[in-house]
């Protein structure tokens, strides 16, 4: 028997490979293949899915109970390490303390020999699927073998069966199938692609047959998502094609399999390069603005008293200012506003320098403390509960004091 393997994987639209919680793995020496879909609402699902597929394909003597225990131990070790890092987030620690678990679907396939005959055996839990399409298929509906723990009629939802990374809180009952190994192709797929495959039937096979590499796969995924034929979900695909060469050995003749860790590395490098380029661009623009400001500074610097009194006068506007500051720098399309903001900052900075020159006069000290006060009040701007003087003096003013533009800029 000759075996050819293809494997491709991608994340949800607008997410990174790093975010992808689907995983697959295979081991040629064990003739084992596995795919898993980490449940996105669970805790560290991609670590759980990764452990499940890799440990399963690498295990020689298989004891299911022990396999799960070993996987759970490994998951806990990895997660504990992350949680104990000094920069661990509060929500990570909370979920860990609450003993939240990782959840994942699983499909495992292995080939083995029994009395001179090669057999395949597979088990499946959740909405990841195994399909076997015989070489000379005539009737897809009758001849395509479908394995998953989904019950008929198959409805894809957000509540699949799964293996849990903690305790015995697994959901559903795994389905097992065993049969002689014959020419044809096994397809292991996570839910979005499996749903598409079940809808497309014969035409799915011809569409799949043209994928020669990861790029072909990604192109297909983008197109089918755009056409709303494929759900926006992490998507993984592993195919194992069997050709009977009348020999007793299993020979692996070709492998075109993407490695998720490599895809993550490449993408992160691309992001770093893009970020550096963006940083350079911003520095350049800032330098240009600075030189413009320095020319104007001598004319534009206003007395401290005036700036502060302006702040007091426009207390209603404070949230607006703070809001703008928070978004400043985040939006590329804010560059026109950027200059204005830099100018404002520059004014305060310049004013502070001006005060230093004046020191040790009391006026300078007072002004510094007022600037600090102003900054502090800006920090708590959105929670101000005291009525402001302007509003009190104009009780009938009915205009909202915060233009929607400040928010819509963040969309």
């Amino acid at each position, binding site marked *: 028997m000759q075996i050819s393997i293809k494997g491709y994987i991608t994340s949800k639209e607008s997410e990174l490979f790093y975010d992808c919680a689907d995983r697959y793995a295979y081991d040629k020496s064990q003739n084992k293949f596995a795919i898993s879909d980490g449940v996105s609402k669970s805790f560290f699902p991609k670590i759980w899915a990764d452990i499940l597929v890799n440990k399963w394909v690498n295990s020689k003597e298989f004891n299911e109970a022990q396999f799960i225990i070993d996987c759970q131990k490994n998951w806990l070790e990895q997660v504990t390490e992350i949680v104990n890092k000094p920069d661990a987030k509060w929500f990570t620690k909370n979920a860990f303390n609450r003993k939240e678990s990782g959840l994942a679907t699983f499909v495992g396939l292995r080939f083995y020999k029994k009395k001179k005959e090669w057999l395949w055996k597979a088990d499946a839990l959740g909405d990841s699927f195994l399909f076997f399409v015989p070489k000379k298929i005539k009737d897809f509906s009758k001849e395509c073998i479908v394995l998953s723990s989904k019950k008929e009629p198959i409805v894809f939802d957000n509540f699949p069966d799964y293996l849990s990374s903690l305790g015995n809180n697994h959901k559903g009952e795994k389905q097992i199938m065993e049969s002689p190994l014959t020419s044809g192709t096994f397809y292991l797929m996570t839910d979005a692609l499996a749903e598409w495959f079940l809808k497309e039937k014969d035409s799915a096979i011809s569409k799949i047959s043209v994928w020669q590499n990861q790029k072909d796969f990604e192109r297909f995924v983008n197109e089918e998502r755009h056409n709303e034929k494929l759900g926006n979900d992490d998507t993984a695909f592993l195919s194992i094609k069997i050709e009977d060469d009348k020999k007793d050995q299993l020979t692996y003749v070709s492998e075109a399999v993407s490695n998720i860790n490599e895809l993550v590395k490449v993408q992160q490098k691309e992001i770093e390069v893009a970020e550096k380029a963006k940083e350079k661009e911003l520095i350049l623009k800032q330098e240009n603005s600075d030189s413009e400001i320095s020319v104007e500074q001598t004319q534009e610097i206003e007395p401290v008293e005036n700036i502060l009194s302006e702040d007091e006068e426009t207390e209603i506007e404070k949230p607006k200012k703070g809001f703008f500051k928070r978004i400043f720098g985040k939006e590329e399309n804010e560059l026109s506003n950027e200059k204005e903001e830099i100018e404002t900052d520059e004014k305060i900075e310049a004013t502070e320098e001006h005060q230093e020159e004046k020191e040790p006069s009391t006026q300078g000290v007072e002004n510094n403390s007022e600037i600090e006060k102003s900054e502090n009040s800006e920090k708590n701007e959105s929670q101000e509960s005291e009525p402001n003087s302007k509003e009190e003096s104009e009780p009938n003013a009915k205009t909202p*004091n915060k233009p929607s533009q400040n*928010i819509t800029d963040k969309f």
Partner: protein
Amino acid sequence: MSNSKQWSSATPGYIIFLVDQSGSMNETYAEGKTRSEFTALVINRTINELINTNMDGEKVKDRVFISMIGYGGSSSLAVDDIRSDYLSSFADDPLRMEQLKKKVSDGAGGLIEIDEQMPIFIEPTANGLTPMADAFSFTKELIEGWLQKKPDNPAPIIINISDGLPYTGDSIDTAMNNAISVSKEIMNINSADGNPLIFNCHLGEGKTHSFNENESELSDDQAKFLFKVSSKVPESYKQAAVKQDFQAKPESRGFVSNADPELFIQFINFGSSGGSDKIA
């Protein structure tokens, strides 16, 4: 089906919490807390839940943009952006953290006490009048801005939490009519995922009405007003309503009047369910 678009990083949902911060929100409500304190507690918990549901362990996915808009509060007729951000920004930058003790399952049938950090995103405020129509007008601008930039995203959800009728110092009827008029404009905005939804939660004591189908079933002005400014509960939200023990009938409007704390929490869970039940 309308209002059924999946919330994802590619097509985030938009929840707008409209928070009545008028002076009457200072009245005692439950658990020794005022209405404004309890409202802040529920919103903080809801955002915390959205963070928990939309994180993969160490990273929060931006599947929802949240605006908290207060009316009354900072001045008698103010409409304030308390905070508007994508979910991950809330997670990265809470106002402050509170330490709580919480009992959770020990996995062996018992309970253990654990320390939990509770993020605070909104502080209670109670001051001024109830300029609800202005808050709706502001919301309309936000929704139009959102749909202009995100035409293919889920239709926005507005959850209005108030303890009374709109009041701006003039006639209550005028204030009510203004609010009704703007709410209808919002509910008539078209998007690829259907119309924006307005769900209303009224805090108070007295006879409770919820998810009614006809205005004629309602006995008081407060409930009648809420009926008028609330959206019909779409099919896609019926399951979430049932999950929270609400009886969602074919023509039910998404509102509850005189909600006690339990009903209040159930209603907010229902209203924000897009961020937990419809995620990719």
